[in-house]
């Protein structure tokens, strides 16, 4: 908490039919990349917009760079850059005109030309915003966030819906921003993104924090670091699978079963025995090391993507 550049305690935001954020504590250190991870409707956008001073919380305190929104709104606005989950910039303006417009709001910052260059938008300098691809629009949104030379960058789902190449480009932008000393808070429901990009990750669900740590710490939280996925004909009953000594848990995944296990060497033979004992035939079997995705499943019993 000492040198946190973003911190909040007991954050609450209740809407008439849903508790969007329900008692959230977060702390983001200087120069780190912090990820808010969770399924749709988890409360990520609500949380990040409260931190950005755009939504007033029903309860809790927020401190950004040692200041509060109530007392230092203008100073804070000069020092943070924001990309909202969904903003449509002026379709009829060109990329350059848009960046220049946003640049004019800030006291200091880089030249519009150099920001466009950093985001590989030079070629699109004179294109209308309405004619850009999804990835280009997203880069323009980030350009508008960087044009005031911010200390903190807030990105709400910066890569959702982008093709892999655009996604990589944005990851590079984030890495470069951090090299210059910047702090990043981003939301995502993409596991790979969180694991690749973030120093710390907070997993949220239904407005609650359900896990917090570095990607490694979080994965280590799974008592069983390996996953076996298999299908058989006919399928086995879950009680039988759970009864396996090496199995720490199992959940359905499509029409397959996923088992969380300690040691693959122990568990795979046990499983093959079980299949034979039931007079069934193994149709498919695969294994992988546990990921954040598996952690989410083990924490909530639901999958991240399709909630």
């Amino acid at each position, binding site marked *: 908490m000492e040198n946190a550049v973003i911190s909040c305690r007991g954050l609450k935001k209740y809407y008439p039919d849903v508790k969007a954020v329900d008692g959230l504590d977060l702390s983001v250190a200087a120069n780190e990349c912090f990820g808010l991870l969770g399924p749709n409707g988890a409360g990520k956008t609500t949380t990040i917009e409260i931190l950005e001073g755009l939504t007033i919380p029903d309860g809790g305190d927020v401190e950004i760079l040692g200041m509060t929104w109530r007392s230092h709104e203008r100073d804070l606005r000069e020092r943070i850059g924001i990309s909202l989950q969904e903003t449509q910039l002026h379709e009829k303006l060109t990329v350059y005109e848009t960046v*220049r417009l946003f*640049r*004019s709001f800030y006291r200091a910052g880089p030249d519009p030309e150099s920001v466009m260059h950093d985001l590989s938008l030079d070629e699109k300098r004179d294109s209308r915003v309405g004619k850009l691809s999804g990835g280009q629009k997203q880069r323009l949104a980030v350009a508008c966030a960087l044009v005031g030379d911010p200390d903190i960058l807030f990105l709400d789902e910066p890569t959702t819906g982008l093709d892999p190449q655009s996604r990589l480009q944005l990851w590079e932008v984030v890495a470069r921003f951090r090299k210059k000393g910047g702090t990043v808070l981003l939301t995502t429901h993409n596991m790979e993104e969180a694991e690749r990009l973030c120093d710390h990750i907070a997993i949220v669900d239904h407005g609650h924090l359900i896990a917090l740590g570095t990607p490694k710490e979080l994965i280590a939280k799974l008592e069983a670091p390996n996953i076996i996925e298999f299908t058989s004909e006919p399928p086995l009953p879950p009680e039988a699978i759970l009864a396996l000594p090496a199995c720490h848990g199992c959940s359905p995944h499509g029409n397959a079963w996923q088992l969380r296990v300690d040691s693959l060497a122990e568990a795979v033979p046990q499983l093959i025995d079980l299949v034979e004992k039931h007079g069934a035939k193994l149709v498919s079997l695969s294994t992988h090391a546990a990921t954040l995705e598996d952690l989410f499943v083990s924490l909530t019993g639901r999958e991240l993507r399709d909630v």
Partner: protein
Amino acid sequence: MSKGVRPAIVELTSARTKEFIRETEAIFWVFGFPLILALALGFAFREKAPDRIPVGVVSGPEAPQRLAALQKSPVLAPRIVSEAEGRDALRHGRVSLLIDGGDAVIYRFDPTRPDSRTARQEADDALQTAAGRRNVIVAREEFVHEQGARYIDFLIPGLLGMNLMGTGMWGMGFTIANARMKKLLKRLVATPMRKSQYLIAQFLSRLIFLTLEVIVLVAFGWIVFGVRVNGSLTLLAVLCLVGGYAFSGLGLLTASRARTLEGVSGLMNLIMMPMWLCSGVFFSYERFPDKVKPLIRALPLTMLNDALRAVINDAAPLTRVAPQIALLAVWGLATFAIGLKIFRWQ
């Protein structure tokens, strides 16, 4: 400031202006539509020679002579008909007067119809003159078509007022509601931009187009229909400015909370419709009952139209339109202030 970047108010105004210029449809509604309306209405109601009154002459030996005499009258359109045909035409109003009889002329007509009475008088004059009657007094006719009293003279200032209202309200209201819906307003308030600057920029950009609109419409009326600005051009400019300002304020207020374009469109129409109908755009509101006139006069478009007509048609001095200018300024100030106060940025 970094290279090529101008102050926020300039950038915002120029962004809004470019956005508008690049919206071809909007250009038509602002510049093309009022001109087309002026053209159509101007020609539909232009002064023409009054229609001639149809008169039937029952065939007979005297008919050709009578026809020739009647044709000399500038107001009658005589033709020869059989008696049955003539009576039928008279009954159905196809002729206003039927002329019959031998040596003694018979005028058949319905005395309750003014055109029939006119036709009887005119026909009698024509026939008597042809028969050799001499007029005792010398008389000369002089026709009056005073510039400033034609329908088009009435219409052009009304269209000017209507256009100032329409573009002022839509220009502000639509843009704001659209930006709110696209979360652009939210994105803008997430920067250090001053909120008042955004709204002032919208208005400044409006002023640029307002100036063009007024020049185009006034020049059009002058060149095509000879509608002259009899009063001071400076005063006209001041009026347009204050009018545009008042309606921009009203547009801002209308759009200050609406979340959807449908919502803001409905509200706009609700506010503008009564003014289109009552504020004397196409016809004078003097025909409304006396009781509602004070109400109509309190509408901003009525004030603007009255003042525009006073300056354009009657060459009114500042002192005569000062009350309207002051009231419109109050309208603008109040609506801007309230609109800004209750404005929803997200």
